[in-house]
């Protein structure tokens, strides 16, 4: 009796233990099922996009740049474009079959250009269209440590043909089983025996999901049991649609560098450069076919295998009456239509990416960036970016040819921004731009050399009752006690130039005149001006700052010049336009913000002096017509012992700053003109920026003055120049020597031309 009791007790104990163990196992698996399905699967890295190119009537676009952009977006040039991703360009007419992006539907459009401007856009029916939008390029993401990349699809975004194809190939009984299907296993076995190869797998979609979510690929009984339990639990917790959606978003499709491509949304982007909703039946068949062996059937690496597998899937669809026999016959001969592999790479432009990342970290936690699937629309112009990188690299090659291999490790940085709204269009932080590492555009803090001068001169011109462009400056020897030493600045040509008008001292970049001017206006005024222009850095109290010992990063320097190029309106530089969540709602935007910091009149004077660098100074080489069309202006900078070569210049709507030098700060053979300006010139000549509207400044008046004494002169006098003044500040005195030439009568034709000039240049109101 006692024995029996003991046995039943032991049996009971064992039974309870087993039950407890099973319950515990189920609980553990259940926890993993729910936490993984609700966690990892729905984590999507933030994606960073370039600006989408929008074409609308009146948009300025250089045709060469347009073609380059299409090429970067992997659009293919064909005779008659008739499917997404194709275009034809001839005689200023672009026919393009758009792939579609956001509210832009795919379709054929015809864009007529004239003088680098969009004249008209027509759709397939020949009706006028206001605006079309091309897809942006992905320039990188904020990937989690495991580098899984996906584009999350919601149920309404999943095309029916994708569902049909997946079910036909992977799990025909999906809607009828409870996670495990003995029917599927036996049918698959039978089919595979008939076909003589593995055409169908026996695992249900739920089992495949369970497998991919939790377990390694080892083939053990224990694993099979756990997989089965997990499948049942998944079916218990989630609806069929939820399971299918999880599967569609999670399947592994390819490895791209360090990045793992998961889900059909990302797969469509990765292989076809578009969203899943734009894919055709054969393209979907290709992706679904890849599930069986993502590497074996990778269409880029193994196109033959991929084609055979796709056709097998198409065959299954035809057998299941999902497509007609004739459609099958047509589709099986189609090409794969894969976009080139470099499209949508990991991180394309590290310097720009870096600036975006720093900006994002101000507003978002790292975890949110890596999981919330934010889409970050930036201002990057991929064509300008590529051109800027090439200009820097090719100029370096030229310089090495000229100066020898001592320039082999010459480094550089360059930034291009839109002068109206502060949008950062392109950035490089290295002469080998695709490499990660030291981003000189924001981290190289170097003496800015003569780039400081326009800022000092503007400080003076802003006091317009004291200074104008003809104010005489003194460029004779200067000795100053500074920090216990005698400071004696030199000019680059080691000469003294005596008394010269202010604008001449600037475009000739005379150091001594500039140092005296800085001392005259004083450190405090200079510091105030720096602050107004956007430089948030203390100005050290020693006179060499006035001729360029002041240190800035390229990024901070271009911010100050942005305020000048933008007519005195300070606009914080912006790399990001807006950030959207997965529903397409704007989560955060970086609006165009401006603040008038300097009056536009003194700015127009400094811009005039900077234009003289192009007409006769260190940036000469362009035709007068070109300079006027672009309203170009600039300044070269060379630091002490030629350790830094700088150029900043605006042309049309673009402001570009370039720095060249060595990381270890040793001497270069370069000046601002022979180094950085060459990069600027190569870039600007390549992109051919559009002109910007002239400003109306009724308080500005142009007067002929002498380039030596700065006094009033006349058109017919030698050595005279038409110089702008704020009305009332212009020189009035005409020296006796010029009385005759200055008042010499003009021919009637000249008078008429002058009047016309006055109307168009002076503005009204």
């Amino acid at each position: 009796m006692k024995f029996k009791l003991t046995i039943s007790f032991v049996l009971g104990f064992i039974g309870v233990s087993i039950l407890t163990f099973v319950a515990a196992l189920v609980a553990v698996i259940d926890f993993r099922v729910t936490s993984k399905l609700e966690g990892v699967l729905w984590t999507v890295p933030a994606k960073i996009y370039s600006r989408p190119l929008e074409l609308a009537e009146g948009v300025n676009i250089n045709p060469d740049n347009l073609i380059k952009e299409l090429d970067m977006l992997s659009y293919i040039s064909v005779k008659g474009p008739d499917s997404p991703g194709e275009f034809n360009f001839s005689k200023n007419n672009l026919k393009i079959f758009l792939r579609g992006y956001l509210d832009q539907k795919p379709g054929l459009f015809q864009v007529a250009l004239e003088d680098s401007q969009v004249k008209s856009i027509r759709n397939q029916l020949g009706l006028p269209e206001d605006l079309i939008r091309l897809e942006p390029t992905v320039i990188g993401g904020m990937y989690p440590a495991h580098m899984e990349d996906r584009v999350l699809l919601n149920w309404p975004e999943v095309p029916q043909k994708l569902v049909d194809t997946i079910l036909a190939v992977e799990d025909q009984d999906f809607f009828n089983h409870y996670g495990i299907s003995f029917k599927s296993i036996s049918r698959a076995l039978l089919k595979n025996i008939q076909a003589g190869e593995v055409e169908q797998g026996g695992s249900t979609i739920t089992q495949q999901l369970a497998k991919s979510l939790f377990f390694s690929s080892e083939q053990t009984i224990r694993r099979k049991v756990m997989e089965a339990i997990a499948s049942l639990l998944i079916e218990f917790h989630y609806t069929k649609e939820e399971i299918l959606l999880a599967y569609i978003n999670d399947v592994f499709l390819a490895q791209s560098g360090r990045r793992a491509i998961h889900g059909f949304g990302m797969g469509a982007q990765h292989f076809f450069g578009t969203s899943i909703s734009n894919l055709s039946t054969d393209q979907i068949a290709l992706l679904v076919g890849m599930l069986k062996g993502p590497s074996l059937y990778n269409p880029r690496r193994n196109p033959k295998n991929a084609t055979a597998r796709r056709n097998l899937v198409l065959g299954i669809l035809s057998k299941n009456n999902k497509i007609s026999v004739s459609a099958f016959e047509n589709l099986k001969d189609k090409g794969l239509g894969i976009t080139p592999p470099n499209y949508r790479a990991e991180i394309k432009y590290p310097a720009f990416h870096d600036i975006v990342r720093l900006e994002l970290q101000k507003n978002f936690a790292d975890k949110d960036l890596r999981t919330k699937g934010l889409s970050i629309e930036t201002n990057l112009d991929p064509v300008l970016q590529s051109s800027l990188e090439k200009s820097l690299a090719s100029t370096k090659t030229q310089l090495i040819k000229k100066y020898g291999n001592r320039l082999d490790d010459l480094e550089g940085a360059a930034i291009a921004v839109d002068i109206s709204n502060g949008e950062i269009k392109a950035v490089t932080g290295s002469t080998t731009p695709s490499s990660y590492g030291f981003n000189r555009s924001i981290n190289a803090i170097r003496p800015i050399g003569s780039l400081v001068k326009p800022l000092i001169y503007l400080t003076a011109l802003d006091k317009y009752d004291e200074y104008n462009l003809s104010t005489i400056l003194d460029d004779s020897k200067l000795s100053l006690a500074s920090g216990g030493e005698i400071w004696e600045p030199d000019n680059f040509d080691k000469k003294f130039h005596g008394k010269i008008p202010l604008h001449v001292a600037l475009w000739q970049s005379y150091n001594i005149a500039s140092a005296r001017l800085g001392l005259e206006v004083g450190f405090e005024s200079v510091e105030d001006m720096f602050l107004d222009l956007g430089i948030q850095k203390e100005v050290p109290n020693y006179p060499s700052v006035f001729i360029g010992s002041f240190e800035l990063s390229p990024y901070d320097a271009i911010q100050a010049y942005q305020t000048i190029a933008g007519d005195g309106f300070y606009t914080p530089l912006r790399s990001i336009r807006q950030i959207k969540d997965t529903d397409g709602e704007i989560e955060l935007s970086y609006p165009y913000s401006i603040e008038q910091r300097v009056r536009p009149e003194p700015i127009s004077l400094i811009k005039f002096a900077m234009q003289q660098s192009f007409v006769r100074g260190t940036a000469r080489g362009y035709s007068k017509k070109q300079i006027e069309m672009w309203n170009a202006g600039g300044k070269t900078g060379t630091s002490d012992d030629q350790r830094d070569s700088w150029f900043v210049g605006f042309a049309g709507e673009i402001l570009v700053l370039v720095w060249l030098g060595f990381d270890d700060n040793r001497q270069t053979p370069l000046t601002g003109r022979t180094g950085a300006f060459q990069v600027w010139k190569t870039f600007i000549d390549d992109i051919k920026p559009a002109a910007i509207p002239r400003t109306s400044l009724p308080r500005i008046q142009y007067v002929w003055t002498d380039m030596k004494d700065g006094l009033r002169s006349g058109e017919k006098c030698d050595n005279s120049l038409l110089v702008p003044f704020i009305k009332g500040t212009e020189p009035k005195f005409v020296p006796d020597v010029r009385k005759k030439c200055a008042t010499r009568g003009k021919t009637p034709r000249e008078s008429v031309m002058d009047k016309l000039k006055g109307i168009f240049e002076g503005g009204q109101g």
Partner: protein
Amino acid sequence: MKVFAKFLALLSIFSIISCASNQNNRDISNYVVPVNDFSKTVELLISDKNFLEDEILKINSNNPSVQRIIKSADDYLRQENYIAANSELERAYRITKRDGSLYLRLAHLRYKQGLLKESESFASKGLLLLNISSWERLLLNVYLKN
């Protein structure tokens, strides 16, 4: 009284527009407006922001693409969705930077957002345009007086 003032104001507006809405946008300086009525209009524009908004939203661009975007921006503005309105205006601004209608809207939008300094700055920047009409010039000036 207010209705009468509005009537007077509109009358003077029409007389200005008849001179100034010439879309070549050259300033025509010798329009005839009774000084009293004119200053009443300005007063009303400054004091009655709804009236001002109505007037601003009537000004459109000559460019059809910009018109379409402006319409969408105006809809957002009326719904007080300022972020979306701004996003649309910036889109239009990328198409053309010489359109008074955009500066007016940006100045107005910033005003509504409570960013008075920016509102004033957009108005000042708009006033640097060569090709705006006298009416646009007058409206931009209203934002300098906030």
